[in-house]
Protein backbone atom coordinates (compact mmCIF):
# COMPACT_ATOMS: atom_id res chain seq x y z
CA UNK A 1 0.00 0.00 0.00
CA UNK A 2 1.33 3.38 -0.91
CA UNK A 3 0.51 6.84 0.28
CA UNK A 4 -0.33 9.38 -2.40
CA UNK A 5 2.58 11.70 -1.70
CA UNK A 6 5.77 12.26 0.21
CA UNK A 7 9.11 10.50 0.32
CA UNK A 8 9.38 6.75 0.68
CA UNK A 9 10.38 5.66 4.18
CA UNK A 10 12.24 2.39 4.61
CA UNK A 11 10.87 -0.26 6.93
CA UNK A 12 12.17 0.33 10.44
CA UNK A 13 12.73 4.06 9.97
CA UNK A 14 10.68 6.60 11.85
CA UNK A 15 7.38 7.19 10.06
CA UNK A 16 5.80 9.50 12.57
CA UNK A 17 7.27 11.25 15.54
CA UNK A 18 5.47 13.04 18.32
CA UNK A 19 7.63 15.54 20.19
CA UNK A 20 6.67 17.18 23.47
CA UNK A 21 3.00 17.34 22.60
CA UNK A 22 0.64 18.90 25.13
CA UNK A 23 -3.10 19.20 24.70
CA UNK A 24 -5.63 20.60 27.10
CA UNK A 25 -9.33 21.32 27.02
CA UNK A 26 -9.88 24.42 29.07
CA UNK A 27 -8.43 23.36 32.40
CA UNK A 28 -8.36 19.63 31.63
CA UNK A 29 -4.92 18.41 30.59
CA UNK A 30 -5.55 15.49 28.28
CA UNK A 31 -1.93 15.03 27.13
CA UNK A 32 1.14 16.53 28.77
CA UNK A 33 4.56 16.74 27.12
CA UNK A 34 4.41 13.37 25.41
CA UNK A 35 7.06 12.21 22.95
CA UNK A 36 7.30 8.93 21.08
CA UNK A 37 7.72 7.67 17.57
CA UNK A 38 6.18 5.11 15.28
CA UNK A 39 8.45 3.18 12.92
CA UNK A 40 7.43 2.04 9.51
CA UNK A 41 6.06 -1.47 9.45
CA UNK A 42 5.60 -1.92 13.18
CA UNK A 43 2.52 -2.40 15.31
CA UNK A 44 2.73 0.20 18.01
CA UNK A 45 0.39 -0.11 20.97
CA UNK A 46 -0.75 2.84 23.06
CA UNK A 47 -2.10 1.69 26.40
CA UNK A 48 -3.14 3.24 29.68
CA UNK A 49 -6.02 3.39 32.15
CA UNK A 50 -9.30 5.13 31.33
CA UNK A 51 -8.92 8.82 30.65
CA UNK A 52 -5.17 8.47 30.13
CA UNK A 53 -5.31 10.52 26.94
CA UNK A 54 -4.97 7.72 24.38
CA UNK A 55 -7.86 8.76 22.15
CA UNK A 56 -6.78 12.38 22.43
CA UNK A 57 -3.34 11.33 21.20
CA UNK A 58 -4.81 9.70 18.10
CA UNK A 59 -6.95 12.76 17.51
CA UNK A 60 -3.84 14.91 17.58
CA UNK A 61 -2.06 12.59 15.15
CA UNK A 62 -4.77 12.78 12.53
CA UNK A 63 -5.37 16.48 12.85
CA UNK A 64 -8.70 16.39 14.61
CA UNK A 65 -7.32 18.18 17.67
CA UNK A 66 -4.61 20.80 17.54
CA UNK A 67 -2.06 20.52 20.35
CA UNK A 68 -1.15 23.69 22.22
CA UNK A 69 2.47 22.64 22.30
CA UNK A 70 4.76 20.24 20.55
CA UNK A 71 5.51 19.02 17.11
CA UNK A 72 4.43 16.17 14.91
CA UNK A 73 6.58 14.96 12.06
CA UNK A 74 5.09 12.58 9.52
CA UNK A 75 7.29 11.07 6.82
CA UNK A 76 10.08 13.48 7.65
CA UNK A 77 7.96 16.61 7.34
CA UNK A 78 6.92 18.71 10.31
CA UNK A 79 3.21 19.33 10.11
CA UNK A 80 1.56 22.68 10.36
CA UNK A 81 -2.07 23.34 11.08
CA UNK A 82 -4.14 20.82 9.23
CA UNK A 83 -7.64 19.53 8.75
CA UNK A 84 -8.59 15.87 9.20
CA UNK A 85 -8.90 15.38 5.44
CA UNK A 86 -5.29 16.48 5.04
CA UNK A 87 -4.30 13.53 7.21
CA UNK A 88 -6.44 11.28 5.03
CA UNK A 89 -4.70 12.54 1.90
CA UNK A 90 -1.36 12.13 3.63
CA UNK A 91 -2.02 8.44 4.19
CA UNK A 92 -3.44 8.24 7.72
CA UNK A 93 -6.65 6.30 8.32
CA UNK A 94 -8.38 5.45 11.57
CA UNK A 95 -11.20 3.66 13.28
CA UNK A 96 -13.09 4.93 16.30
CA UNK A 97 -13.60 3.80 19.85
CA UNK A 98 -17.36 4.11 19.36
CA UNK A 99 -17.96 2.86 15.85
CA UNK A 100 -18.39 5.81 13.49
CA UNK A 101 -19.88 4.18 10.42
CA UNK A 102 -22.35 5.70 7.99
CA UNK A 103 -25.33 3.96 9.48
CA UNK A 104 -27.82 4.41 6.67
CA UNK A 105 -25.46 3.02 4.04
CA UNK A 106 -24.74 -0.60 3.24
CA UNK A 107 -21.51 -2.29 4.31
CA UNK A 108 -20.38 -2.20 0.69
CA UNK A 109 -21.06 1.52 0.34
CA UNK A 110 -19.30 2.22 3.62
CA UNK A 111 -16.15 0.54 2.37
CA UNK A 112 -16.55 2.23 -1.01
CA UNK A 113 -16.56 5.65 0.63
CA UNK A 114 -13.07 4.81 1.82
CA UNK A 115 -12.06 5.03 -1.84
CA UNK A 116 -13.51 8.52 -2.32
CA UNK A 117 -10.21 10.29 -2.12
CA UNK A 118 -8.73 8.03 -4.77
CA UNK A 119 -11.53 8.59 -7.28
CA UNK A 120 -10.74 11.23 -9.85
CA UNK A 121 -13.66 11.47 -12.27
CA UNK A 122 -15.40 14.80 -11.93
CA UNK A 123 -18.99 15.84 -11.65
CA UNK A 124 -19.95 15.66 -15.32
CA UNK A 125 -18.67 12.12 -15.71
CA UNK A 126 -20.42 11.12 -12.50
CA UNK A 127 -23.63 12.58 -13.89
CA UNK A 128 -23.40 10.32 -16.95
CA UNK A 129 -21.97 7.27 -15.19
CA UNK A 130 -20.63 5.97 -18.44
CA UNK A 131 -17.23 5.37 -19.98
CA UNK A 132 -14.41 6.46 -17.70
CA UNK A 133 -16.70 7.08 -14.72
CA UNK A 134 -18.15 3.59 -14.80
CA UNK A 135 -14.72 2.09 -15.46
CA UNK A 136 -13.36 3.90 -12.42
CA UNK A 137 -16.28 2.77 -10.29
CA UNK A 138 -15.74 -0.85 -11.33
CA UNK A 139 -12.00 -0.67 -10.77
CA UNK A 140 -12.48 0.57 -7.22
CA UNK A 141 -15.23 -1.95 -6.64
CA UNK A 142 -12.68 -4.67 -7.39
CA UNK A 143 -10.34 -3.36 -4.72
CA UNK A 144 -13.19 -3.06 -2.26
CA UNK A 145 -14.35 -6.61 -2.96
CA UNK A 146 -10.81 -7.80 -2.16
CA UNK A 147 -11.06 -6.11 1.20
CA UNK A 148 -14.53 -7.53 1.77
CA UNK A 149 -13.21 -11.02 1.03
CA UNK A 150 -10.21 -10.45 3.27
CA UNK A 151 -12.43 -9.45 6.18
CA UNK A 152 -14.93 -12.20 5.42
CA UNK A 153 -17.93 -9.90 5.28
CA UNK A 154 -19.19 -11.00 1.86
CA UNK A 155 -22.63 -11.99 3.05
CA UNK A 156 -23.42 -8.70 4.73
CA UNK A 157 -22.42 -6.50 1.78
CA UNK A 158 -25.95 -5.28 1.16
CA UNK A 159 -27.01 -4.78 4.76
CA UNK A 160 -27.30 -1.22 6.08
CA UNK A 161 -24.63 -1.19 8.77
CA UNK A 162 -26.99 0.21 11.38
CA UNK A 163 -28.61 -3.23 11.48
CA UNK A 164 -25.38 -5.18 11.98
CA UNK A 165 -24.18 -6.51 15.32
CA UNK A 166 -21.40 -4.56 16.97
CA UNK A 167 -18.60 -6.99 16.15
CA UNK A 168 -19.36 -6.87 12.44
CA UNK A 169 -19.65 -3.09 12.52
CA UNK A 170 -16.12 -2.93 13.86
CA UNK A 171 -15.02 -5.11 10.98
CA UNK A 172 -16.74 -2.95 8.38
CA UNK A 173 -15.12 0.08 9.93
CA UNK A 174 -11.72 -1.57 9.59
CA UNK A 175 -12.63 -2.30 5.98
CA UNK A 176 -13.44 1.33 5.32
CA UNK A 177 -10.08 2.38 6.77
CA UNK A 178 -8.24 -0.27 4.72
CA UNK A 179 -9.97 0.92 1.56
CA UNK A 180 -8.03 4.16 1.96
CA UNK A 181 -4.81 2.14 1.58
CA UNK A 182 -3.25 4.08 4.41
CA UNK A 183 0.41 4.14 5.27
CA UNK A 184 -0.45 4.56 8.93
CA UNK A 185 -3.55 2.97 10.40
CA UNK A 186 -4.82 4.19 13.76
CA UNK A 187 -7.10 1.75 15.59
CA UNK A 188 -8.93 2.97 18.68
CA UNK A 189 -9.88 -0.09 20.75
CA UNK A 190 -10.75 -2.29 17.77
CA UNK A 191 -11.74 -5.15 20.07
CA UNK A 192 -13.74 -3.32 22.71
CA UNK A 193 -16.96 -5.13 23.54
CA UNK A 194 -16.08 -8.26 21.57
CA UNK A 195 -16.18 -11.87 22.70
CA UNK A 196 -13.09 -14.10 22.62
CA UNK A 197 -13.71 -15.45 19.13
CA UNK A 198 -14.34 -12.03 17.66
CA UNK A 199 -11.18 -10.79 19.33
CA UNK A 200 -9.18 -13.63 17.84
CA UNK A 201 -10.57 -12.87 14.39
CA UNK A 202 -9.82 -9.19 14.72
CA UNK A 203 -6.27 -9.89 15.99
CA UNK A 204 -5.73 -12.09 12.95
CA UNK A 205 -6.94 -9.34 10.62
CA UNK A 206 -4.67 -6.79 12.24
CA UNK A 207 -1.63 -9.04 11.98
CA UNK A 208 -2.49 -9.87 8.36
CA UNK A 209 -2.89 -6.24 7.40
CA UNK A 210 0.49 -5.57 8.93
CA UNK A 211 2.07 -8.59 7.22
CA UNK A 212 0.57 -8.59 3.76
CA UNK A 213 0.21 -4.90 3.13
CA UNK A 214 3.06 -3.73 5.33
CA UNK A 215 0.76 -1.14 6.89
CA UNK A 216 2.11 0.55 9.99
CA UNK A 217 -0.41 0.34 12.81
CA UNK A 218 -0.94 2.32 15.98
CA UNK A 219 -3.30 0.45 18.25
CA UNK A 220 -5.10 1.42 21.43
CA UNK A 221 -6.20 -1.61 23.39
CA UNK A 222 -7.17 -2.43 26.95
CA UNK A 223 -6.79 -6.20 26.75
CA UNK A 224 -3.19 -6.74 27.85
CA UNK A 225 -3.08 -10.23 26.37
CA UNK A 226 -3.89 -8.84 22.94
CA UNK A 227 -1.37 -6.04 23.31
CA UNK A 228 1.41 -8.44 24.29
CA UNK A 229 0.63 -10.73 21.35
CA UNK A 230 0.24 -8.13 18.65
CA UNK A 231 2.52 -5.24 19.28
CA UNK A 232 6.18 -4.68 18.60
CA UNK A 233 6.50 -1.74 20.96
CA UNK A 234 4.24 -0.21 23.57
CA UNK A 235 3.88 3.32 24.86
CA UNK A 236 2.06 3.71 28.18
CA UNK A 237 0.14 6.85 29.12
CA UNK A 238 -1.33 7.69 32.48
CA UNK A 239 -3.13 10.94 33.27
CA UNK A 240 -1.82 12.33 30.00
CA UNK A 241 1.83 11.62 30.85
CA UNK A 242 4.03 9.04 29.21
CA UNK A 243 5.18 6.65 31.91
CA UNK A 244 6.82 3.91 29.86
CA UNK A 245 7.90 3.07 26.34
CA UNK A 246 9.45 -0.15 25.07
CA UNK A 247 8.87 -3.75 24.09
CA UNK A 248 5.86 -5.49 25.61
CA UNK A 249 8.10 -7.49 27.93
CA UNK A 250 9.93 -4.42 29.23
CA UNK A 251 6.72 -2.52 29.76
CA UNK A 252 5.08 -5.40 31.57
CA UNK A 253 7.88 -5.38 34.17
CA UNK A 254 7.95 -1.61 34.58
CA UNK A 255 7.07 -0.56 38.11
CA UNK A 256 5.33 2.69 37.07
CA UNK A 257 3.10 0.73 34.70
CA UNK A 258 2.22 -1.83 37.35
CA UNK A 259 1.40 0.98 39.77
CA UNK A 260 -0.76 2.81 37.21
CA UNK A 261 -2.72 -0.30 36.41
CA UNK A 262 -3.10 -1.30 40.04
CA UNK A 263 -4.24 2.21 40.85
CA UNK A 264 -1.49 3.24 43.28
CA UNK A 265 -2.03 6.81 44.48
CA UNK A 266 0.18 9.43 42.86
Amino acid sequence: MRAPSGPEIAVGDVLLSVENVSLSFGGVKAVTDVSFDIRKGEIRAIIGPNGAGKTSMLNVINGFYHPQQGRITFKGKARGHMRPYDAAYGGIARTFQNVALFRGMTALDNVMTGRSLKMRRGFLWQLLRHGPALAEEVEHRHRVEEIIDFLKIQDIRRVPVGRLPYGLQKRVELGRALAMEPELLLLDEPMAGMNIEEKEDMSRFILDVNDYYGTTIALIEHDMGVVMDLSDRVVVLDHGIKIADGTPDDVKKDQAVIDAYLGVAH
Partner: protein
Amino acid sequence: MFYREAGQFKTTYAADSALFPILQDKIGIVLILFVAFILVPLTASDFAIDSILTPILVFSLAAIGLNLLTGYTGLLSLGTGGFMGVGAYACYKLATFFPGINIVVLIICSGFFAAAAGILFGLPSLRIKGFYLSVATLASQFFLSWCFIRIPWLYNYNVSASIEVPTRTLFGVPVTGPTATPATRYIVVLAIVSIMTWLASNLIRGRIGRTWMAVRDMDIAAELIGIKLYQTKLLAFAVSSFYCGVAGAMLVFLWLGNAESESFNINQSFLILFMVIIGGLGSLLGSFLGAALIWGLPIVLRTVPGFFNLSIKAATVEHITFMTLGALIILFLIAEPNGLARLWQIGKQKLRVWPFPY
Protein backbone atom coordinates in the same frame (compact mmCIF):
# COMPACT_ATOMS: atom_id res chain seq x y z
CA MET B 1 -43.17 -15.99 -8.07
CA PHE B 2 -43.14 -13.54 -10.92
CA TYR B 3 -40.93 -10.94 -9.34
CA ARG B 4 -37.58 -12.44 -8.43
CA GLU B 5 -34.04 -12.53 -9.61
CA ALA B 6 -33.72 -16.32 -9.61
CA GLY B 7 -31.40 -17.40 -12.38
CA GLN B 8 -30.31 -13.84 -13.12
CA PHE B 9 -26.67 -13.76 -12.07
CA LYS B 10 -24.74 -10.57 -12.27
CA THR B 11 -21.37 -11.34 -13.72
CA THR B 12 -19.85 -7.86 -13.67
CA TYR B 13 -19.74 -5.15 -11.05
CA ALA B 14 -21.13 -2.74 -13.63
CA ALA B 15 -24.21 -4.91 -14.07
CA ASP B 16 -24.45 -5.38 -10.33
CA SER B 17 -24.76 -1.65 -9.76
CA ALA B 18 -27.09 -1.04 -12.71
CA LEU B 19 -30.16 1.09 -12.19
CA PHE B 20 -32.60 -1.77 -12.71
CA PRO B 21 -30.67 -4.92 -11.93
CA ILE B 22 -33.63 -7.28 -12.15
CA LEU B 23 -35.16 -8.14 -15.53
CA GLN B 24 -38.70 -7.59 -14.26
CA ASP B 25 -37.73 -4.07 -13.22
CA LYS B 26 -36.31 -3.38 -16.67
CA ILE B 27 -39.52 -4.54 -18.31
CA GLY B 28 -41.48 -2.51 -15.80
CA ILE B 29 -39.66 0.72 -16.53
CA VAL B 30 -39.99 0.26 -20.28
CA LEU B 31 -43.72 -0.28 -19.82
CA ILE B 32 -44.05 2.80 -17.63
CA LEU B 33 -42.15 4.94 -20.13
CA PHE B 34 -44.28 3.58 -22.98
CA VAL B 35 -47.48 4.39 -21.15
CA ALA B 36 -46.24 7.79 -20.03
CA PHE B 37 -44.81 8.95 -23.35
CA ILE B 38 -47.22 7.38 -25.82
CA LEU B 39 -50.42 6.05 -24.32
CA VAL B 40 -51.17 8.95 -21.97
CA PRO B 41 -50.84 11.78 -24.53
CA LEU B 42 -52.99 9.81 -26.98
CA THR B 43 -55.76 8.81 -24.62
CA ALA B 44 -55.87 10.94 -21.48
CA SER B 45 -58.20 13.92 -21.25
CA ASP B 46 -56.84 17.44 -21.11
CA PHE B 47 -58.18 17.67 -17.57
CA ALA B 48 -56.31 14.56 -16.44
CA ILE B 49 -53.10 15.76 -18.05
CA ASP B 50 -53.19 19.36 -16.98
CA SER B 51 -54.53 19.07 -13.46
CA ILE B 52 -53.10 15.72 -12.43
CA LEU B 53 -50.14 14.43 -14.42
CA THR B 54 -48.19 17.55 -15.32
CA PRO B 55 -48.28 19.05 -11.81
CA ILE B 56 -47.30 15.72 -10.26
CA LEU B 57 -44.28 15.56 -12.56
CA VAL B 58 -43.30 19.16 -11.82
CA PHE B 59 -43.60 18.65 -8.07
CA SER B 60 -41.76 15.35 -8.31
CA LEU B 61 -38.77 17.13 -9.78
CA ALA B 62 -38.83 19.71 -7.00
CA ALA B 63 -39.16 16.89 -4.47
CA ILE B 64 -36.15 15.14 -6.00
CA GLY B 65 -34.25 18.41 -5.63
CA LEU B 66 -35.13 18.72 -1.96
CA ASN B 67 -34.52 15.03 -1.42
CA LEU B 68 -30.96 15.31 -2.72
CA LEU B 69 -30.31 17.96 -0.11
CA THR B 70 -32.39 16.75 2.82
CA GLY B 71 -32.77 13.02 2.27
CA TYR B 72 -29.33 12.28 0.88
CA THR B 73 -27.09 14.93 2.42
CA GLY B 74 -29.03 15.46 5.64
CA LEU B 75 -29.39 19.24 5.30
CA LEU B 76 -32.96 20.24 6.05
CA SER B 77 -34.02 23.14 3.85
CA LEU B 78 -37.15 25.25 4.15
CA GLY B 79 -36.19 27.36 1.15
CA THR B 80 -37.39 25.12 -1.68
CA GLY B 81 -40.11 27.53 -2.77
CA GLY B 82 -37.58 30.34 -3.01
CA PHE B 83 -35.21 28.31 -5.17
CA MET B 84 -38.09 27.29 -7.43
CA GLY B 85 -38.94 30.96 -7.71
CA VAL B 86 -35.39 31.87 -8.69
CA GLY B 87 -35.69 29.36 -11.53
CA ALA B 88 -39.06 30.70 -12.62
CA TYR B 89 -38.11 34.38 -12.60
CA ALA B 90 -34.73 33.65 -14.17
CA CYS B 91 -36.49 31.81 -16.98
CA TYR B 92 -38.88 34.71 -17.46
CA LYS B 93 -36.06 37.22 -17.71
CA LEU B 94 -34.06 34.95 -20.01
CA ALA B 95 -37.09 34.55 -22.27
CA THR B 96 -37.39 38.33 -22.34
CA PHE B 97 -33.73 38.96 -23.14
CA PHE B 98 -33.17 36.06 -25.51
CA PRO B 99 -36.41 35.55 -27.42
CA GLY B 100 -34.50 33.66 -30.12
CA ILE B 101 -33.19 30.91 -27.91
CA ASN B 102 -35.26 27.76 -27.54
CA ILE B 103 -37.45 27.86 -24.45
CA VAL B 104 -36.47 24.37 -23.32
CA VAL B 105 -32.84 25.46 -23.30
CA LEU B 106 -33.81 28.51 -21.24
CA ILE B 107 -35.74 26.40 -18.75
CA ILE B 108 -32.65 24.26 -18.19
CA CYS B 109 -30.40 27.35 -18.01
CA SER B 110 -32.58 28.91 -15.36
CA GLY B 111 -31.55 25.98 -13.17
CA PHE B 112 -28.05 27.46 -13.06
CA PHE B 113 -29.37 30.68 -11.55
CA ALA B 114 -31.16 28.68 -8.88
CA ALA B 115 -27.97 26.68 -8.31
CA ALA B 116 -26.03 29.92 -7.77
CA ALA B 117 -28.67 31.06 -5.27
CA GLY B 118 -28.45 27.65 -3.60
CA ILE B 119 -24.69 27.94 -3.19
CA LEU B 120 -25.03 31.46 -1.80
CA PHE B 121 -27.71 30.55 0.72
CA GLY B 122 -25.99 27.24 1.42
CA LEU B 123 -22.86 29.00 2.69
CA PRO B 124 -24.12 29.06 6.30
CA SER B 125 -24.14 25.24 6.21
CA LEU B 126 -20.36 25.39 6.48
CA ARG B 127 -20.64 26.79 9.98
CA ILE B 128 -24.01 25.74 11.34
CA LYS B 129 -25.94 22.49 11.40
CA GLY B 130 -29.35 21.03 12.01
CA PHE B 131 -32.00 23.28 13.41
CA TYR B 132 -29.99 26.47 12.95
CA LEU B 133 -29.32 25.68 9.32
CA SER B 134 -33.03 25.14 8.73
CA VAL B 135 -33.70 28.56 10.21
CA ALA B 136 -31.09 30.05 7.89
CA THR B 137 -32.79 28.47 4.86
CA LEU B 138 -36.11 29.79 6.16
CA ALA B 139 -34.58 33.26 6.21
CA SER B 140 -33.46 32.80 2.62
CA GLN B 141 -37.02 31.81 1.72
CA PHE B 142 -38.38 35.04 3.18
CA PHE B 143 -35.68 37.09 1.53
CA LEU B 144 -36.37 35.56 -1.89
CA SER B 145 -40.14 35.95 -1.44
CA TRP B 146 -39.55 39.59 -0.65
CA CYS B 147 -37.48 39.97 -3.83
CA PHE B 148 -40.22 38.39 -5.96
CA ILE B 149 -42.70 40.96 -4.66
CA ARG B 150 -40.54 44.05 -4.31
CA ILE B 151 -38.38 43.95 -7.41
CA PRO B 152 -40.73 44.81 -10.29
CA TRP B 153 -37.91 44.29 -12.77
CA LEU B 154 -38.28 40.57 -12.17
CA TYR B 155 -41.83 40.53 -13.57
CA ASN B 156 -41.12 43.14 -16.26
CA TYR B 157 -43.08 45.82 -14.36
CA ASN B 158 -46.42 44.13 -15.14
CA VAL B 159 -49.25 45.91 -13.34
CA SER B 160 -50.59 42.56 -12.17
CA ALA B 161 -47.18 41.78 -10.65
CA SER B 162 -47.35 38.38 -12.30
CA ILE B 163 -45.41 36.52 -14.95
CA GLU B 164 -47.25 36.05 -18.25
CA VAL B 165 -45.69 33.30 -20.29
CA PRO B 166 -45.08 34.17 -23.95
CA THR B 167 -45.79 31.70 -26.73
CA ARG B 168 -42.71 29.76 -27.81
CA THR B 169 -42.34 26.83 -30.13
CA LEU B 170 -40.28 23.68 -30.35
CA PHE B 171 -39.92 22.18 -33.85
CA GLY B 172 -42.69 24.52 -34.93
CA VAL B 173 -45.13 23.29 -32.27
CA PRO B 174 -46.08 25.76 -29.52
CA VAL B 175 -44.87 24.44 -26.17
CA THR B 176 -45.50 27.46 -23.97
CA GLY B 177 -48.12 30.16 -23.85
CA PRO B 178 -51.90 29.99 -24.30
CA THR B 179 -51.81 28.08 -27.61
CA ALA B 180 -49.72 25.17 -26.38
CA THR B 181 -51.85 22.08 -25.79
CA PRO B 182 -51.73 20.29 -22.43
CA ALA B 183 -50.43 17.14 -24.13
CA THR B 184 -47.47 18.95 -25.71
CA ARG B 185 -46.53 20.63 -22.48
CA TYR B 186 -46.89 17.33 -20.65
CA ILE B 187 -44.51 15.56 -23.02
CA VAL B 188 -41.86 18.25 -22.63
CA VAL B 189 -42.19 18.13 -18.84
CA LEU B 190 -42.05 14.35 -18.89
CA ALA B 191 -38.91 14.34 -21.03
CA ILE B 192 -37.12 16.82 -18.79
CA VAL B 193 -38.16 15.03 -15.60
CA SER B 194 -37.19 11.61 -16.97
CA ILE B 195 -33.73 12.72 -18.02
CA MET B 196 -33.06 14.63 -14.82
CA THR B 197 -34.23 11.70 -12.70
CA TRP B 198 -31.85 9.42 -14.55
CA LEU B 199 -28.99 11.88 -14.02
CA ALA B 200 -29.81 12.15 -10.31
CA SER B 201 -29.78 8.39 -9.96
CA ASN B 202 -26.35 8.31 -11.61
CA LEU B 203 -25.01 10.82 -9.12
CA ILE B 204 -26.49 8.97 -6.18
CA ARG B 205 -25.06 5.59 -7.12
CA GLY B 206 -21.54 6.91 -7.57
CA ARG B 207 -18.86 8.63 -5.57
CA ILE B 208 -20.79 11.87 -5.16
CA GLY B 209 -23.88 10.16 -3.79
CA ARG B 210 -21.78 8.23 -1.31
CA THR B 211 -20.02 11.34 -0.08
CA TRP B 212 -23.40 13.04 0.39
CA MET B 213 -24.75 10.16 2.42
CA ALA B 214 -21.52 9.92 4.40
CA VAL B 215 -21.86 13.57 5.37
CA ARG B 216 -25.49 12.94 6.30
CA ASP B 217 -24.73 9.93 8.49
CA MET B 218 -21.57 11.08 10.26
CA ASP B 219 -19.82 14.21 9.10
CA ILE B 220 -16.82 13.84 11.41
CA ALA B 221 -15.97 10.38 10.11
CA ALA B 222 -16.58 11.59 6.57
CA GLU B 223 -13.98 14.31 6.98
CA LEU B 224 -11.49 11.86 8.45
CA ILE B 225 -11.66 9.63 5.40
CA GLY B 226 -10.84 12.55 3.17
CA ILE B 227 -14.20 14.05 2.26
CA LYS B 228 -14.15 17.83 2.17
CA LEU B 229 -17.30 18.92 3.94
CA TYR B 230 -17.63 22.35 2.38
CA GLN B 231 -17.33 21.03 -1.17
CA THR B 232 -19.75 18.23 -0.52
CA LYS B 233 -22.39 20.39 1.14
CA LEU B 234 -22.20 23.21 -1.39
CA LEU B 235 -22.40 20.75 -4.26
CA ALA B 236 -25.53 19.30 -2.66
CA PHE B 237 -27.02 22.78 -2.35
CA ALA B 238 -26.12 23.58 -5.96
CA VAL B 239 -27.51 20.40 -7.49
CA SER B 240 -30.59 20.48 -5.29
CA SER B 241 -31.39 24.08 -6.15
CA PHE B 242 -30.76 23.39 -9.82
CA TYR B 243 -33.49 20.76 -9.73
CA CYS B 244 -35.83 23.03 -7.79
CA GLY B 245 -35.12 25.89 -10.18
CA VAL B 246 -35.94 23.84 -13.26
CA ALA B 247 -39.09 22.62 -11.51
CA GLY B 248 -40.06 26.23 -10.77
CA ALA B 249 -39.48 27.29 -14.38
CA MET B 250 -41.55 24.36 -15.62
CA LEU B 251 -44.27 25.16 -13.14
CA VAL B 252 -44.76 28.55 -14.73
CA PHE B 253 -43.85 27.92 -18.36
CA LEU B 254 -45.13 24.43 -18.95
CA TRP B 255 -47.97 24.13 -16.50
CA LEU B 256 -49.69 27.25 -15.12
CA GLY B 257 -48.82 29.69 -17.88
CA ASN B 258 -48.60 32.52 -15.41
CA ALA B 259 -47.59 32.89 -11.81
CA GLU B 260 -47.28 35.32 -8.96
CA SER B 261 -44.93 35.44 -6.04
CA GLU B 262 -47.33 33.30 -3.97
CA SER B 263 -46.43 30.28 -6.06
CA PHE B 264 -42.99 30.40 -4.50
CA ASN B 265 -43.63 31.25 -0.90
CA ILE B 266 -43.12 29.34 2.32
CA ASN B 267 -46.24 27.23 1.73
CA GLN B 268 -44.67 25.84 -1.41
CA SER B 269 -41.55 24.96 0.58
CA PHE B 270 -43.59 23.05 3.13
CA LEU B 271 -45.65 21.31 0.45
CA ILE B 272 -42.50 19.94 -1.19
CA LEU B 273 -41.06 19.01 2.18
CA PHE B 274 -44.20 17.02 3.01
CA MET B 275 -43.95 15.24 -0.32
CA VAL B 276 -40.41 14.22 0.52
CA ILE B 277 -41.31 13.08 4.02
CA ILE B 278 -44.33 11.05 2.96
CA GLY B 279 -42.60 9.70 -0.12
CA GLY B 280 -39.44 8.78 1.68
CA LEU B 281 -36.28 10.65 2.61
CA GLY B 282 -33.40 9.41 0.54
CA SER B 283 -35.43 7.84 -2.26
CA LEU B 284 -35.97 9.07 -5.81
CA LEU B 285 -38.98 6.82 -6.26
CA GLY B 286 -40.35 8.22 -3.01
CA SER B 287 -40.20 11.73 -4.46
CA PHE B 288 -42.66 10.65 -7.17
CA LEU B 289 -44.87 8.73 -4.77
CA GLY B 290 -44.99 11.63 -2.31
CA ALA B 291 -45.84 14.15 -5.02
CA ALA B 292 -48.52 11.86 -6.44
CA LEU B 293 -50.09 11.27 -3.03
CA ILE B 294 -50.12 14.87 -1.89
CA TRP B 295 -51.29 16.23 -5.21
CA GLY B 296 -53.68 13.38 -5.87
CA LEU B 297 -55.39 13.21 -2.49
CA PRO B 298 -57.53 16.37 -2.80
CA ILE B 299 -58.49 15.41 -6.34
CA VAL B 300 -59.63 12.01 -5.16
CA LEU B 301 -61.53 13.59 -2.29
CA ARG B 302 -63.22 15.95 -4.70
CA THR B 303 -64.21 13.40 -7.32
CA VAL B 304 -64.91 10.17 -5.44
CA PRO B 305 -67.98 11.43 -3.52
CA GLY B 306 -69.43 12.41 -6.89
CA PHE B 307 -69.57 8.75 -7.90
CA PHE B 308 -71.85 8.08 -4.98
CA ASN B 309 -73.96 11.13 -5.75
CA LEU B 310 -72.75 12.77 -2.59
CA SER B 311 -71.98 16.42 -2.73
CA ILE B 312 -69.36 17.83 -0.44
CA LYS B 313 -68.67 21.51 -0.31
CA ALA B 314 -65.34 22.64 -1.71
CA ALA B 315 -64.39 24.16 1.63
CA THR B 316 -65.09 20.87 3.38
CA VAL B 317 -62.92 19.00 0.90
CA GLU B 318 -60.12 21.41 1.65
CA HIS B 319 -60.48 20.86 5.39
CA ILE B 320 -60.52 17.11 4.98
CA THR B 321 -57.45 17.30 2.77
CA PHE B 322 -55.53 19.29 5.34
CA MET B 323 -56.49 16.98 8.15
CA THR B 324 -55.70 13.82 6.22
CA LEU B 325 -52.34 15.18 5.13
CA GLY B 326 -51.50 16.25 8.65
CA ALA B 327 -52.42 12.84 10.00
CA LEU B 328 -50.45 11.09 7.26
CA ILE B 329 -47.33 13.13 7.92
CA ILE B 330 -47.45 12.40 11.63
CA LEU B 331 -48.18 8.76 10.94
CA PHE B 332 -45.24 8.44 8.58
CA LEU B 333 -42.87 10.30 10.85
CA ILE B 334 -43.72 7.95 13.69
CA ALA B 335 -44.32 4.64 11.98
CA GLU B 336 -42.33 4.66 8.75
CA PRO B 337 -39.78 7.48 8.53
CA ASN B 338 -38.62 6.03 5.23
CA GLY B 339 -41.98 6.77 3.71
CA LEU B 340 -43.94 5.22 0.87
CA ALA B 341 -40.75 4.16 -0.88
CA ARG B 342 -39.96 1.84 2.02
CA LEU B 343 -43.45 0.37 1.96
CA TRP B 344 -42.98 -0.27 -1.74
CA GLN B 345 -39.68 -2.04 -1.03
CA ILE B 346 -41.21 -4.20 1.66
CA GLY B 347 -43.98 -5.10 -0.75
CA LYS B 348 -41.43 -6.06 -3.39
CA GLN B 349 -39.50 -8.15 -0.88
CA LYS B 350 -42.70 -10.00 0.02
CA LEU B 351 -43.38 -10.57 -3.66
CA ARG B 352 -39.88 -11.93 -4.17
CA VAL B 353 -40.41 -14.76 -1.70
CA TRP B 354 -44.07 -15.30 -2.49
CA PRO B 355 -45.73 -17.80 -2.21
CA PHE B 356 -43.30 -19.38 0.27
CA PRO B 357 -42.35 -16.69 2.74
CA TYR B 358 -40.12 -18.95 4.85
